[in-house]
């Protein structure tokens, strides 16, 4: 299972730039001066691509962590955390 989780990390690493590429391409294809829908306006695309770029970078880091085995054992958060056990 850990090997599978690590291999999937490569998929997540690759997926992030693909998503950004598709978003930028969709923006170029859909922004038109005469269009009345939100998808035809530049502002929503600027906001969405600006906010999605760090998210996609986060997804790449997630992929890298998967690949490097960070989620092999402690993939799950601890329910009772150390600083609460004694409280």
């Amino acid at each position, binding site marked *: *299972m850990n090997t*599978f*989780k690590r291999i*999937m990390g490569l998929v*997540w690493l690759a997926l992030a730039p693909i998503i950004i590429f598709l978003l930028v391409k*969709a923006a170029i294809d*859909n922004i038109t001066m005469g269009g009345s*829908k*939100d*998808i035809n*306006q530049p*502002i*929503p695309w600027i*906001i*969405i691509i*600006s*906010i*999605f770029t760090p*998210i996609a970078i*986060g*997804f790449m*880091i*997630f992929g890298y*962590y*998967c690949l490097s085995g*960070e*989620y092999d054992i402690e*993939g*799950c*958060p*601890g*329910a*009772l*955390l*150390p*600083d*609460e056990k004694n*409280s």
Partner: protein
Amino acid sequence: MAVKAPSGIVKIIFSSSLGTMIEWYDFYIFGMLAKTISVQFFPEGNGTAALLSTLAIFAAGFIVRPFGALVFGRMGDIIGRKATFLITLVIMGLSTFLIGLVPGYKTIGLAAPLLVLLLRLVQGLALGGEYGGAATYVAEHAPAGKRGFYTSWIQTTATLGLFVALGIIMFVKANMSDAAFNSEWGGWRYPFWISILLVGVSVYIRQRMNESPVFAKLKAEKKTSSNPLNESFGKKQNFKMVLLALFGAVMGQGVIWYTGQFYAQSFLENTVHLEFIQNREIMLWAIGLATPFFVVFGWLSDKIGRKWIILTGMLLGVIFYRPIFNSMLKAGDEKAWIMTTNEIVKESFTMTAAGNDSIRTASTTFRTPDGNVYTQKMVDTLYQSPGVISQTQKITYTNKIVNRKLFFHYILLVWVMIMFVTMVYGPIAAFLVEMFPVKIRYTSMSLPYHIGNGVFGGLVPFIATLLSASFLSDPLVGLWYPIGIAALCFVIGAFYLRNKTDIISE
């Protein structure tokens, strides 16, 4: 060993939930009254006003909510949960009330949309800080083994806020004419004004609450974080959990939540063309009947773990969204209705000049033998030359009021989708709270929550429009976005998250 709940837990849950519900109410009424607000503040034909309108819609959800999560999350981890979620409540209440006081574009010009934009951004900021505080506060009062049950009451608030907002708007609208409701100082402002009363009551209750015992102990021992942002996102041990929370749980939860509660309503109104009030009645019934299940699934997550309840909700959405929406579309399809002999309820004509020609709009309301009512609108051009030639350009079917059988059919379909919402959303607060240590909990859980719900969930209508514009032949093509995100999240969650019952022990 039996776990004993702290004294006053009902009061703690009630006062936390009430405030959070009011914040959701405040945030929703703006969206629900978007058409009226647009007429009053963002008139068509004014480029600047249109730009401000777009900013109000997109920036509030996508940028300011996550930013609010960081600002107030940090504050909550440094000065405390109670003070922080009291501040967010006051900010939200005041900004909502003030939106109701801004004069229209006709009176003060561009200052009107500018003020509304500013206040909408403040609303988004406050919402970003509220949820994490309330969820953390309740969870830190709950003993292990009951966190899912206690925090699930907080989870009902987003839906109850929607329920109250729908109810108040419908009540006000039902008691006045459309003209009175939509005028500059008309009834649409009442829901904004009511907010100040609701917030006043909630602030009074919250002020009397104590600080979270876990956080108070940490503070007394001087063990609170001095830089929660750095500890949350700068240290690998925590940051990897933030990423796992977002991509393995909240991202999918966000799209399921948005699709069930908002996209369904928009689809019934804009694609099926159900009449305004009946559409909202369907939503109210479905929401009302499903809401108790937030608590049921929160409670169940304490018994069998949170992971598979959340992931099952996502998987059901992935499998059933297209059949459900297809059934909605077919049930309200006018093709079968117009084949029968229908009774004419009302007819009207309007003529408008278009150069030398005229545009004639004929509006006819029909009732089918089995009780469905719909309005057929035909737009014709009457050419002045060479002689009078009429050419039907467009026929649309709107304002559909379905019969009792179809009404219950729609309630059932929406209820099923909101049941998926209760599965993904009921246990999520406890799930997030348990991922992070006390000293950075508010910050760490707030950001993935608001990216998942505000960004991934909030993008549902935009991406749906994008897909519909690209693939014209499939009216359900917009669903591939929530289906795709939920499927991706399901795979990540299934492989990278472990169920928590093996760790929680009483």
